[in-house]
């Protein structure tokens, strides 16, 4: 059942990605000021949004674990954080390459860039913390606490382009600005690619959480065999 779900999400995500790539490269025109380079936005922004969404979902699952004690919530949270870190890295790297063309520099200490990097560091610390603790309930409890603190920075990343205006462009999506900042066709493709990346992300999370439950099964079997 789980395998079928993974395949379904992966296949639908892949088809959507292929359709979007066709649109991105062959249908949509160049951007007026940036030319060809702007097309990186169709991966840069969705990766960022899916990553941040992932952190918030992981925080919710962490709170659910603290409330209910179900280790499956913790396993799912850990899987989601891991996949979100990957997407956040995609966001930072693509942003850096875009910045090299647009601003002439690979990096700057702009508030959004700084807080995004800090976010990756915090949740990488989360993954390191999990490896440092063997006992499952202690690991779940302490990871949950760290996720909740970490989400304070996710809020800063999200809001930084409204609170501080520096190098990074301000909000362009209609959902934040009310419209007018981005061409409707481009925005449509961006949102569609966000869906595609989300579907691929969900497939990866399902695979990872299966691995977490396998690891738990191995642990309990070892205890049965007194090994």
């Amino acid at each position, binding site marked *: 059942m789980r395998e079928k779900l993974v395949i379904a999400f992966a296949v639908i995500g892949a088809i959507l990605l292929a359709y979007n790539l066709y649109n991105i490269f062959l249908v949509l025109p160049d951007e007026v000021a940036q030319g060809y380079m702007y097309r990186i936005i169709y991966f840069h922004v969705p990766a960022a949004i899916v990553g941040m969404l992932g952190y918030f979902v992981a925080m919710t699952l962490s709170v659910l674990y*603290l409330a209910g004690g179900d280790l499956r919530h913790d396993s799912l949270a850990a899987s989601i954080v891991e996949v979100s870190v990957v997407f956040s890295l995609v966001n930072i790297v693509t942003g850096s390459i875009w910045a090299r063309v647009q601003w002439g520099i690979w990096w700057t200490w702009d508030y959004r860039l*700084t*807080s995004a990097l*800090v*976010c990756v*560091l*915090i949740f990488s*610390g989360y993954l*390191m*913390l999990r490896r*440092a*603790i063997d006992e499952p309930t*202690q690991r779940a*409890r*302490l990871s*949950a*606490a*760290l996720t*909740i*603190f*970490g989400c*304070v*920075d996710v809020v*800063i990343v999200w809001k930084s382009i409204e609170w501080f205006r520096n190098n990074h462009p301000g909000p362009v999506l209609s959902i934040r600005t009310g419209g007018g900042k981005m061409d409707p066709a481009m925005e449509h493709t961006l949102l569609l690619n966000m869906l595609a990346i989300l579907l691929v992300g969900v497939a990866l999370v399902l695979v990872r959480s299966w691995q977490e439950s396998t690891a738990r099964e191995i642990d309990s079997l070892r205890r049965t065999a007194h090994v």
Partner: protein
Amino acid sequence: MNLLTQAFAVARKDLAIELRTKESLNAAGSFAIVILLIFSFAFDSFADEMNEFGGGLLWLVFAFAGALVFNRGFARELPNECLDTLLASPLSAAALVLGKAFANFVTLLVVEFVSMLVFGIFYSVDWSSQAGGIALVFALTTWGVSILGAVFGALTVNLRLRELMLPVIIYPLMMPILIAAIELTDAVLQHHSVGSQIQWVRVLVASDIVFTALAWALADTILVT
């Protein structure tokens, strides 16, 4: 006994131990002064240039020295099962964390005060011209990092790689607070008033409130018998 009374009792205990042994003060204080010495070789001590990155240097020193203080905070309760005793007592977990944070706060402030004097001597900085502003910035920032240090000191106390995990976890979380402190300290060194950078004061106040509230809410989760 209410939360604050319990917290102050814990802080008083820790500070009494610290006054007697001076282990954190000596370690963090010496470390801070050595780093400042190394910085004075690394960077020329022309006062004008110092105004631009002096804040960053200082807070770098305090962040590193702080890690030494935070590590000791809960680690000193491990021998003789003192931590288990504290957790089994009527003391609430939130009071324990807050008390440790108060103790960290006072210890770190002492280290910062001594470092500021040394920094002032090496780089000819006159702190007295904006003493009030500087005091506010240092108090707000030190509380922010102290509460984080107490929470994550408690979280990492029983881990086998405690000395490594604590800095790895705590430094990224401290970033908003440190950045605000650096901006405000640089402003003071460049003879601007703290009021001209009020948005950073807001960041410090907001961070302090949020982290303290989260610490109070999650103390029971982190410290479990």
